[in-house]
């Protein structure tokens, strides 16, 4: 009985930790998605040269928008 409760708690804890990890990963993923007239799309993830160029500019836009 005690063993099964411990196992259930372990599984639940693992699921919570996994969910938190996935959520954190998703939140910290920075990227730029560009959409073109012909329907094509270019996704630049953090670390690529294009994203390295666009991310600071986007941060500047956000700072300008939030400045009081």
């Amino acid at each position, binding site marked *: 009985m005690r063993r099964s409760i411990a196992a259930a708690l372990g599984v639940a804890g693992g699921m919570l930790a996994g969910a938190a990890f996935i959520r954190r990963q998703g939140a910290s993923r920075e990227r730029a*998605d560009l959409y*073109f*007239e012909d329907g094509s799309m270019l996704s630049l993830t953090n670390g690529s040269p294009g994203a390295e160029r*666009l*991310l600071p*500019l986007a941060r500047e836009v956000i700072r300008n928008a939030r400045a009081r």
Partner: protein
Amino acid sequence: MDAQQALADLTEISSQIEAAVVFDDQGKVAGSTIPHGDRADELAKAAAALLAAAEEVKTGESVLTQLEVSTGEGSVFAVRDGKTSIAATTGGNPTAGLVFYDLKSALRSVKPAAKSAPAKKKTAARKPATRKKPDAS
């Protein structure tokens, strides 16, 4: 519709949008949710710089029409139609499809006002057709 009115409608419809600005290809602000003129100009300039940098990043020949840049601080969306662009900022994890839809709708409602300068030529009202009565003879 006036750009300022379109932006007021946009922020009323979309709770995800924190700030938005409509500007032309010269960076001239047509409307903004930010009350201070200087800050709206700076926001438009920063958004125009982002669009210009994105144009340089692209690999193909096709024209860039919209973009979303997600950062740890929030996201920036921009939609471009000809010489007019709209840019908006949101918090983290926005519903991109909805934000793009709302921005496109706002931009569409702004565009006709810019295009309405050459007035349509009025055509003369048509006279009601009179039916000839058949001859009694």
